[in-house]
């Protein structure tokens, strides 16, 4: 054994350790993932070094006492990124409010006052924008299995706060997501959803923060239509019909929530609506349905091939169609092929 040319066992062990574990660790070498420093444009195709990590934990602004000005970029149906400046108010006790105060039809165009219709639309849907449009981390098992997480070693300043940039790279080609979070508190101050071709679909970045806002007279968001969590089959009698569930979900998805919305009469002939929300941890899929006694365009007969309308609202895709007197909807940030597949699996 003396004078053996073999490497000492300890050295061999260290070499194996240096290869790194399959599961990311905070101290292992990173992958060449989509990260860039600075607060400018971020490309998911950029190649810089990042540290592979476990899933981070965030604190969400709507759960804090604060006022936050935020810049939102959202792609319209023509493919152009429009900009909006929002103000989020939150009392740290479960109440929040979201308003649009500036609007720009393009990235290079100056802000202008928003239209009254845009203000009204924010008024009507602020609750959902905060809850579903704004990025949130879903089940950790899904986040671990569906994404590779990296942390950019270079911090960036967001609204005067030293922030860490995290990237979640989809293992199933659903599109990557980037996050900007306070390095000290984990407060989430920005996020970007990318399409699977690297194109920005939705991007939000905080520009001003105030942790002692004057909330006097604020009218907090409240639902336009009452709702409650739906449990199948116990709540079928309350729903009034037997719901259809998708037989297909994209890989890595799970049912996150089910809501019974008391929408009967909100539109003529409309029954209460079941909204199911599926998630891969970051991307959401809405599957909704209701009975329709007054069928309009697209009337179909049960057990026939269904005629489905689909459209692309920039970053969000949407499909709707009727099966008998059941109207079905699927909406998501996923590709249209995925939406079509989910929709088809709702049918017999």
């Amino acid at each position, binding site marked *: *054994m003396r004078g*053996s040319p073999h490497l000492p*066992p300890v050295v*061999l*062990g260290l070499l*194996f350790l240096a*290869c790194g*574990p399959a*599961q990311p660790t905070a101290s292992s070498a990173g992958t060449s993932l989509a990260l860039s420093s600075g607060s400018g444009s971020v490309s998911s195709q950029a190649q810089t070094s990042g540290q592979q990590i*476990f899933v981070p934990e965030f604190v969400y602004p709507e759960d804090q006492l604060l006022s936050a000005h935020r810049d939102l970029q*959202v792609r*319209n*149906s023509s493919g152009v990124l429009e900009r909006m400046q929002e103000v989020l108010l939150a009392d740290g006790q479960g109440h929040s409010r979201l308003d649009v105060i500036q609007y720009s039809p393009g990235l290079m165009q100056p802000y202008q006052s928003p*239209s009254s*219709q*845009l203000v009204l*639309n924010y008024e009507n*849907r602020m609750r*959902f*924008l905060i809850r*579903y*449009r704004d990025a949130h981390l879903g*089940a*950790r*098992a*899904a986040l*671990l299995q*569906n994404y590779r997480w990296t942390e950019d070693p270079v911090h960036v300043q967001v609204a005067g706060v030293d922030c860490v940039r995290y990237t979640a790279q989809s293992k199933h080609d659903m599109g990557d997501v980037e996050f900007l979070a306070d390095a000290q508190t984990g407060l989430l101050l920005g996020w970007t959803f990318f399409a699977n071709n690297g194109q920005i679909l939705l991007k939000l970045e905080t520009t001003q923060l105030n942790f002692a806002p004057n909330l006097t007279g604020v009218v907090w968001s409240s639902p336009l239509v009452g709702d409650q969590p739906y449990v199948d089959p116990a709540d079928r009698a309350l729903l009034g019909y037997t719901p259809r569930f998708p*037989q*297909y*979900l994209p*890989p*890595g*998805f*799970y049912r996150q929530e089910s809501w019974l919305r008391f929408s009967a009469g909100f539109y003529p002939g*409309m029954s209460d*609506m079941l*909204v199911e929300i599926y998630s891969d941890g970051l991307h959401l899929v809405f599957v*909704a349905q209701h009975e329709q006694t007054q069928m309009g365009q697209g009337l179909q007969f049960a057990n026939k*091939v*269904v005629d*489905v*309308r*689909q*459209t692309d*609202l*920039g*970053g*969000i895709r*949407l*499909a709707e169609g009727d099966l008998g007197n059941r*109207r079905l*909807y699927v*909406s*998501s940030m996923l590709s249209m092929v995925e939406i*079509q*597949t*989910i929709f*088809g699996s709702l*049918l017999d």
Partner: protein
Amino acid sequence: MSTSQHSELPAALRQDLSALGGVPAPAELWERVQIARKLEVLEPVAAPAELWQRVRADLPTPQRHLHHPIFRPIFWLAAAAVLALGILLWQPPAASKAAHSLALSAPVAESSRAAFRARAHFHQAAPAEMSDVARSLAGALGSLMVEDDA
């Protein structure tokens, strides 16, 4: 133990011996008794100082230890491989527990996906052609409403 103590045999033994009558003792008995008595009176004697060195010099070299499998390179390579495999397969307990507590959908063959899509006729529509409910659902996910988009 003194010589007088040797002469005092237990009463029971003496009775047994007397019961033997005129049986003659074996020829070597007396010699063995004499040797035993001599050994009992010997004082502890130290071995010569050079005795251990002489003995050790005659012992065989313990080469057998280097032939043990633990000293072979293949053993350490195998150990390193097992270590690396364990690291590769290792998952943090919390993550493993969480991963098994949630049913995530599995990948589906493209043929099955295509079969689902074949159940409907999909056709492209302008955003304004979609129902209010549909656009509200997309709006909740962050899409611009038709009015916003105008």
